[in-house]
């Protein structure tokens, strides 16, 4: 057994003797983990901010809310029942409605608030005379708005501006500059305005059946009791429409979209890590091939197996720690520009911080990952019989296939765990893993078959091509690695443009599109006829009104459909969504026939001959989610009345049609008497007509909310662009790793094959010919991976777009062409630089008696 200092001496020698290889090792790890580390910073910053400002984001220590009106009496009885002790309480009601200024009207999210709002945090404003202030109290008659509304309504002079909100005019008193309850407003549908609760009834906007979220926000005597109170409330109140939140439990606080984005970015970053590990595995094996003679000599000279293992482990540890420090330093340096990008482009007020916890987690992944990848080389080094040195059989020092398979399965499982952890979703993580393995296997199968097929016809080519092909065919390790890493990185880069284009083509209103221009909701029964007349008058169209009846599911086949609240250390997005989903009410409609945006996929459309139980039709995915199938009987609570429906058909709905679509449709003749509101859509009209219609409707029926579909779509497109950009940046990082591997392999192969090239020169090849052979060899593999990557990426995009989004595929040929141009240029650049050593070959070195074979792999 060697002393630690002696082992360190061996490690130092190893590190110094292979400087170039070690530098490749470090760069590979740095590149592979850069994206991952940056995301860890995002994640940690978001968690920290959510935790620090949980009360401000949630609005209180405890919040009771519902997507309906909660009366003061109802809330008082809740407080008494659980003996809720609080310092202060505030009420808020959120709903969509139209606001009008002059000839401009816009859909806004209105929040009416009572005394004591906000319970936590400060509402910062800029008053109409340009002063910064903190809003303490919202006086009746005042309105505060988001900055973008000022532009949208074309308000040039804010002083003495009156905004029409429902039936009353409110004075604009200031612009909201910071609202802690809306920290993350990624992709919000409409701007936000704040009014006093005392003005709410006068606006006449909230009517029976209106979509309104009421919240009661509490500052508790003992904030630490929030969880206990939440649990108590949930135990005592089985009404699923009521939702209870505690600031002590991490809540999305409106940043769900952002978290999803981070989850998906995390998955893309895993591809970089996967490619980096692939390359690492190759490099470690390469190290081992170079070092095995030395290891055998050490063994013969008496160095024991455990010392050999320790030297290897220590060396890899040094390199990994060095890589981690470098990657961390780069991330810290990048924080300022990324912060600026978040502030100015994404408008996400998140303060990026590097937390010790996240550093520790990343450290373990970056440092332990390579150790895991190195296991086969450790085992090979330990089990290598030094007698092989005498028998010149060192090339036989490798592991059994069984051990390699066990190791590969172990690495795969751990990577799968990493994918689930990174995506916070068992389903997404697993699909990602299956996709990644599928793409890798497809690429590997393709190149293996092609190698074998080419071997059969290689003699038919001229010498240059034949030699290039033979070098590829006979060096399957490096050929397959280059091909798979390049293909996978091109696949990742190909996916986003196709998916983005397909979504954009689907939602962007075009002349041929069947997407409506205007969508109206919260239409009251007594407003129906006059609204139809207004629309006819302004647009010439006869609109159809679709009824909406609010309800909640009580039972499915007499089984209670209960509230689900999962506790635990690790919550997946699915479990969080499931809890949220089950506690939400459902909207019902009724109609006699299918719409254009719907297709029957199972069962039979309403026959009217189902006896006592009414017939209902479910959207197929929704049925799957609630666990209902054909023939099941669902019981709904419609305003206190139990109504049963038997599932007689399942429908597929094209949601991006922007038509009034519903998950649950009743046969006519059941819900007609229930309290209901209506929705409607106005098809293709121009923006002038939209404005005229908006103004006319707002003037007559202030409570009706109108979405200008084209504007909303444009806004969504900006949002999609932002998300796609973030994902594309991360995907580019994967490509950089792929190219890095390409560069490493070309450089090592050129280095290893210098003697081979010298020999070919002795045998009569010219330098130009050798240059041509090598360029041909590497361009062939690079362009083949580019083509297969593009093809495979397009196929996977097609699968994602049609299976997940249920859309038709639109291939983004422009992006693909740009990608080809960029990648081909980079490939040629890389090849040109890497092949420089071929320009200064010295065949005379062959007479200097070095090496027995002119290449080693």
């Amino acid at each position: 057994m060697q002393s630690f200092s002696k082992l360190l001496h061996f490690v130092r020698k190893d590190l110094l003797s292979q400087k170039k290889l070690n530098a490749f090792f470090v760069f590979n790890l740095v590149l592979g983990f850069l994206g991952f580390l940056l995301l860890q910073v995002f994640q940690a910053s978001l968690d920290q901010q959510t935790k620090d400002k949980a009360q401000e984001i949630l609005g209180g220590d405890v919040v009771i809310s519902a997507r309906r009106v909660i009366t003061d009496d109802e809330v008082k009885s809740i407080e008494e029942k659980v003996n809720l002790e609080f310092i202060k309480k505030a009420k808020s009601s959120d709903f969509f409605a139209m606001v009008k200024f002059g000839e401009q009207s816009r859909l806004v999210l209105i929040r009416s608030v009572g005394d004591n709002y906000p319970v936590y945090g400060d509402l910062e404003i800029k008053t109409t005379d340009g002063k910064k202030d903190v809003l303490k109290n919202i006086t009746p008659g005042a309105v505060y708005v988001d900055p973008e509304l000022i532009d949208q309504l074309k308000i040039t002079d804010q002083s003495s501006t009156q905004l029409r909100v429902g039936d009353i005019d409110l004075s604009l008193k200031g612009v909201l500059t910071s609202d802690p309850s809306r920290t993350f407003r990624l992709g919000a549908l409409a701007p936000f305005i704040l009014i006093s609760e005392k003005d709410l009834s006068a606006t006449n906007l909230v009517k029976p059946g209106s979509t309104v979220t009421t919240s009661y926000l509490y500052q508790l005597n003992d904030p630490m009791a929030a969880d206990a109170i939440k649990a108590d409330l949930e135990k005592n109140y089985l009404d699923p429409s009521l939702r209870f939140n505690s600031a002590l439990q991490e809540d999305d606080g409106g940043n769900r979209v952002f978290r999803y984005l981070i989850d998906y970015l995390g998955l893309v970053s895993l591809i970089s890590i996967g490619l980096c590990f692939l390359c690492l595995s190759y490099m470690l094996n390469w190290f081992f091939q170079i070092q095995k003679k030395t290891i055998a000599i050490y063994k013969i000279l008496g160095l024991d197996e455990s010392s050999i293992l320790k030297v290897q482990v220590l060396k890899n540890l040094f390199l990994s720690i060095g890589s981690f420090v470098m990657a961390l330093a780069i991330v810290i340096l990048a924080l300022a520009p990324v912060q600026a990008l978040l502030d100015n482009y994404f408008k996400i007020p998140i303060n990026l911080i590097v937390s010790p916890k996240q550093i520790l987690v990343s450290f373990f992944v970056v440092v332990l990952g390579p150790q895991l990848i190195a296991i086969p080389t450790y085992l090979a080094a330990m089990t290598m019989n030094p007698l092989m040195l005498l028998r010149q059989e060192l090339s036989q020092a490798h592991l059994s296939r069984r051990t390699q398979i066990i190791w590969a399965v172990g690495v795969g499982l751990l990577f799968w765990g990493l994918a689930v952890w990174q995506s916070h979703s068992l389903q997404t993580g697993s699909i990602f893993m299956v996709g990644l393995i599928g793409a890798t296997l497809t690429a590997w199968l393709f190149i293996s078959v092609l190698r074998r097929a080419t071997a059969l016809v290689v003699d038919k080519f001229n010498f240059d091509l034949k030699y290039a092909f033979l070098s590829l065919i006979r060096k399957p390790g490096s050929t397959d690695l280059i091909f798979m890493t390049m293909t996978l990185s091109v696949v990742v880069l190909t996916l986003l443009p196709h998916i983005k284009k397909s979504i954009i083509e689907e939602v962007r209103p075009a002349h041929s599109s069947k997407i409506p221009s205007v969508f109206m909701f919260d239409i009251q029964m007594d407003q129906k006829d006059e609204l139809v007349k207004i629309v006819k008058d302004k647009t010439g169209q006869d609109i159809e009104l679709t009824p909406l009846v609010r309800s909640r599911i009580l039972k499915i086949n007499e089984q209670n459909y209960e509230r689900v609240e999962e506790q635990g250390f690790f919550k997946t997005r699915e479990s969080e969504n499931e809890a949220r989903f089950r506690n939400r009410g459902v909207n019902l409609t009724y109609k006699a026939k299918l719409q254009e945006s719907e297709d029957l996929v199972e069962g039979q459309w309403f026959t009217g001959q189902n006896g006592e139980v009414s017939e209902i039709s479910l959207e197929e995915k929704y049925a799957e989610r609630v666990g209902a199938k054909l023939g099941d009987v669902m019981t709904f609570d419609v305003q206190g009345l139990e109504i049963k429906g038997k599932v007689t058909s399942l429908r597929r709905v094209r949601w991006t049609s922007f038509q009034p679509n519903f998950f649950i449709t009743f046969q006519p003749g059941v819900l007609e008497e229930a309290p209901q509101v209506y929705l409607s859509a106005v098809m293709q009209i121009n923006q002038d007509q939209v404005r005229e219609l908006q103004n006319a409707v707002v003037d007559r029926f202030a409570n009706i909310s109108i979405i200008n579909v084209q504007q909303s779509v444009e806004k969504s497109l900006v949002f999609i662009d932002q998300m796609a950009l973030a994902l594309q940046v991360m995907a580019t990082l994967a490509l950089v790793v792929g190219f890095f591997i390409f560069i490493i392999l070309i450089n090592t192969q050129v280095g290893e094959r210098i003697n081979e090239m010298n020999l070919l020169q002795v045998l009569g090849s010219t330098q130009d010919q050798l240059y041509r052979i090598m360029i041909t060899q590497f361009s062939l593999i690079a362009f083949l991976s580019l083509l297969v990557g593009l093809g495979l990426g397009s196929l996977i995009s097609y699968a994602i777009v049609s299976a997940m989004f249920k859309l038709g595929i639109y291939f983004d040929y422009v992006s693909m062409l740009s990608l080809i141009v960029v990648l081909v240029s980079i490939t040629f650049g890389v090849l040109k630089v890497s092949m420089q050593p071929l320009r200064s070959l010295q065949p005379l070195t062959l007479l200097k008696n070095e090496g027995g074979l002119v290449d080693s792999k």
Partner: protein
Amino acid sequence: MITINQLSKSYQLTTDSSEKMTILHDLNLTVQTGEVVAVVGASGSGKSTLLGLVSGLDQPDHGEILIHGKSLQSLRGNELTNFRASHIGVVFQQYHLVSHLTAFENVSLPLEILNKPVVKSDIIELLKQVGLGHRLDHKPTQLSGGESQRLALARALAIKPSLLLADEPSGSLDSETGEKVMNLFFEQVRLHNTTTMLVTHDMDLARRCDKIYKLHGGVLHPVSQAM
């Protein structure tokens, strides 16, 4: 016939000094067609330099090398490469085989580079002659040292060279294997009547050649076979 006239070669000692070391000085040699000559000498005497010049891989400071009347110094660029590859075969001490090619492919490699037809039966015959008829599809990593050197010899002979240059061909082999390989070497060069220059420090090996020259002080001195 190979004729070397007043061949000189010197090297700069370091890149930043103008001081030169003369390796070969007005060296002369004539080798008749089919003759096998040995060049012996101490390490550093310039044996490899001489091989480099005769093989056309290096250029002399002055002097001339004529192979069958053609001056190597009159040829430039691709013309020289082509002439060299067509007329000169080289056997290296360290074999220098292409590891990813089979024995058959290694032997046919020089013909393919020269765009000469690869006659399968000729290659197989050549491999049989060096005792590798059963190893056609084997890669160099699957061959022993002796087999590798025999393969290298077959490759050098594949182009039917006018001149065969051998640089310590048994230097990496044990004495027994080395002797077997050299037996084969002489058998083959005699069989093909190949003009050969063998560089070695093994006097026993040198004595098997038709003539022996000792390289000393930059010039070749004939050595008696009886020495």
